[in-house]
């Protein structure tokens, strides 16, 4: 069978080559072929509609922070990156279709996954099937990279991971609960995979770190539920000393607004993991003082000049504050760009070999460094901490950083328990 598209050496090619040689001889500049000028296409599968549309905007903006810098510096031997972002609406089948279309129809060299965890699993299968370099930059569900059965040689995760955050959260909460004698706990998380996983893991480790803790109740609002009244009153009735919540985005702001009128935040310690992010702290008009939260993203943490400069540059470029998804996408894109420079190309296999185990200089890492762990292709050493909110900058004034050695130790046990090791 002949391949009609196979490049051959024809009369025109010879003429072009001769012309280029002549031009080089006359003008003294190197000839750059069309192939070399062809943009490097990256297809981003993301959510651009519905209540979580901010995943799409903050993710592509985060990626552009690196891409624009790379392109301005001349790209890869003149080849610039073109980012094409499409809306999967958070649907796994649509996400997989888009990822396939990016590679097969649009000639994308790389896939960026800035979608939900459910879509992330679907995209992982496309990465395995097509062997295309894929960077997951928003899915946080642990098994995506922790489960070796799901591993795809060319897929990586440059995002937080549930198990890492849960161990860090439980460690912090255990210390606070011991100091403040918080024994009666309650959970209120969204009723879907992410909320249930985080709630289960958090209480598992909290009880391990502080055996005196007792879980007196759980409440499961639906994702995107507009009214939390029945859950709030249920929590008030149970009179817990502390509440854990994995609510996020608009759900968390509604919960905080509605909880405030019940004076909930003065009656118990609230550990709402996703509060300290500009998506929440700038949206809630009357942010209660003293909510315990992880540092999703704030310009004030990591407390470094590099991070403050990055946040200011982002704000100046996009006229809005960066979110957690912004830094994850910036970091993931940086890994890919560094690998391109290292391999001088966009071959997925070579890029994957370069990224596995790579450490980059980044404002979001502990001591300014982020590592893509080789064994399970996941991001580690992102600077994560816990503290209590105030209603204005720096929003989380006193952050206690997570201890990554402690995280690694418990993560290993967790992996063994789940037969991941």
């Amino acid at each position, binding site marked *: 069978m002949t391949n009609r598209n196979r490049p051959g050496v024809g009369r025109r090619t010879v003429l072009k080559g001769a012309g280029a040689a002549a031009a080089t001889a006359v003008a003294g500049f190197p000839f750059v072929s069309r192939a070399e000028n062809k943009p490097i296409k990256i297809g981003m599968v993301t959510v*651009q*509609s*519905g*209540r979580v*549309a*901010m995943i*799409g*905007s903050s993710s592509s903006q985060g990626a552009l922070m690196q891409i624009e810098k790379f392109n301005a510096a001349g790209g890869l031997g003149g080849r610039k990156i073109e980012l094409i972002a499409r809306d999967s609406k958070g649907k796994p089948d649509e996400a997989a279709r888009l990822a396939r279309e990016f590679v097969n129809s649009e000639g994308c060299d790389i896939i960026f996954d800035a979608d939900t965890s459910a879509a992330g699993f679907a995209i992982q299968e496309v990465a395995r099937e097509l062997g295309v370099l894929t960077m997951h930059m928003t899915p946080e569900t642990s098994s995506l990279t922790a489960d070796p059965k799901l591993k795809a040689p060319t897929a990586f995760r440059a995002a937080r991971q549930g198990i890492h955050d849960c161990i860090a959260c439980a460690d912090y909460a255990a210390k606070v609960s011991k100091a403040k004698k918080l024994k009666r706990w309650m959970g209120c998380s969204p*009723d879907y995979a992410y909320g249930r996983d985080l709630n289960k893991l958090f209480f598992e480790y909290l009880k391990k770190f502080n055996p005196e803790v007792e879980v007196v*109740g*759980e*409440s*499961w609002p*639906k994702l*995107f*539920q*507009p*009214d939390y*009244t*029945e*859950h*709030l*009153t*249920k929590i*008030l*009735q149970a009179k817990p000393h502390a509440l854990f919540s994995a609510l996020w*985005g*608009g*759900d968390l*702001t*509604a919960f905080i*607004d*509605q909880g*405030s*009128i*019940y*004076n909930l935040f003065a009656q118990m310690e609230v550990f709402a993991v996703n509060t300290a992010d500009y*998506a929440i702290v700038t*949206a*809630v*008009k*009357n942010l209660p003082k003293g909510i315990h939260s992880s540092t999703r993203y704030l310009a004030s943490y990591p407390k470094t000049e590099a991070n403050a400069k990055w946040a200011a540059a982002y704000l100046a470029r996009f006229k809005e504050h960066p979110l957690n998804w912004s830094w994850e996408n910036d970091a993931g894109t940086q890994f890919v760009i560094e690998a391109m420079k290292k391999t001088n190309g966009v071959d997925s296999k070579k890029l994957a070999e370069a990224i596995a185990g790579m450490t980059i200089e980044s404002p979001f890492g502990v001591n300014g460094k982020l590592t893509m762990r080789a064994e399970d292709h996941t991001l580690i050493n992102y600077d994560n901490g816990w503290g209590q909110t105030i209603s204005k900058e720096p929003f989380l004034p006193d952050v206690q950083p997570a201890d990554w050695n402690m995280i690694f130790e418990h993560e290993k046990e967790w992996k063994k328990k789940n037969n991941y090791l």
Partner: protein
Amino acid sequence: MDLPALAECLISPSCIVTQTTSGLIIGLLLFMVAAGVSLIFGVLKVVNFAHGSFYMLGAYFAYTAYQVTGSYTAAVLAGGIGVAIFGLLFERLLIARVYGSPVLMQILVCYGVILILDDVVKLVWGADFLSFGMPETFQALPFLFAGGVIPVFYLFLIIVTLIIAALLGLLITRTRYGKIVRAAAVNPTMVSALGINTGVVYASVFVLGGLLAGLAGGLAAPVRSLTAGMGLSVVIESFIVTVIGGMGSVAGALVGSLLIGLVRSFGSIGFPLFTEGLMFLMMVIVLVLKPSGLFGKEGR
């Protein structure tokens, strides 16, 4: 299922007060939207799936008015009046053209409007969610009654929505306009033959429905996160209310809404994983035992 917790709640005055208040507030806000859905269906036989979008627009209009004026009263009025005007335009320009068409055609028009309005909201107010913020007047500690907690803002909402419900009841049952609307629901041809312009009656029902949904959106805005598509869950619950209460019955909408509110409120304690299911179960039971709804008239 946590029946011991429910039993414990039902013998505790504080739990009864807190959960009943919670049920009332959920139910009464829902009533404001469901009453419009029920009236429009009862009178015009139009399944207005876009009614949730009316509620959404009310919240966004109120948000903008609050940003401009800083007055919560002005915001709520802007939500109500803005959506009443929108309801008039919606009925005259779109729905009036599909009266008598198959129900699928009406649903298609409504669905198209839902999609368009969601995108319009994104274009005008942005794709990210917005938070209205609690007006200063209501930033007070909640009341304690028999050990139960009643937030000041919710007490205000309960009073306002009850007044609106009473006024609506009077309008429908005690005024000439109400008689015409009820007559139009039963026999529009006869109403028309008596020299009443049914087109105006139909439009006025949409205006009334829009006013109620817009007021609900504005009233609820301080405790909801505003986002495109926020009307969807409200419209689904409104249709459950309409089925339970009976098509076209304001009293039915009120009873159905309060039932849903109380089921959600007490259900979250006794059946934490089946609260949504309880609502649908209640709807199924009503459909089996009294298909026309609790307050619906048979054989309409």
